[in-house]
């Protein structure tokens, strides 16, 4: 799933490891989510959204809308 995680992380000058520690997941997980190889569960997506103080839709692109576009 396409997302803005890399941009949001860069804006805060966080490494993947920094973000992983804040989310209490592995750096591999952050990498997999950023590159769209893994879609996070809803609880993890909410944790990501809370961390950036944004809505889930503002971070992750809705796949069904992606097809229409």
């Amino acid at each position, binding site marked *: 799933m396409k997302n803005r995680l890399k941009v949001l992380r860069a804006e805060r000058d966080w490494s993947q490891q920094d973000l992983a520690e804040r989310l209490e997941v*592995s*750096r591999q*997980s952050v990498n997999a989510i950023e590159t769209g190889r893994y879609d996070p*569960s809803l609880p993890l997506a909410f944790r990501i959204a809370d961390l950036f103080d944004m809505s889930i839709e503002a971070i992750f692109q809705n796949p069904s809308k992606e097809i229409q576009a």
Partner: protein
Amino acid sequence: MSQSVAQRRYNKRTIVFSLFYAATLIAAVYSFKHHLVAGPLAWVVAVLPALSIVGIFAAIGLYLAEESDEYVRAMTVRQTLWASGFALSIATIWGFLESFELVGHVESYWVSILWFGGLGLGTCANRLSTVGRRS
């Protein structure tokens, strides 16, 4: 990379079961070679090394239940699916070849050995899925 609490527990359990396996296997081989066991005791001595392998399967199950990182857990599940597919496929093919008397008999514990080999195959599959997509 630091290991998760679940990974450290899994490593400890696996080491304990591996040591128990080595000890019981040596004891079983020695006992049977020197005709020290018979009757119900022979059954117990013969089964003990197998129980260690069962323990390692249980350790993998516990690891999957305890691992809190959902991505790592998903990768491990995929690895075990590769292992299961690999071991069961080879066992099935061998079983048919054996039924038609084209190959000799092989002890069934080889399925476990194939399964552990299949975990390596699963690791390769997981690594290949990340090639060229790292940022």
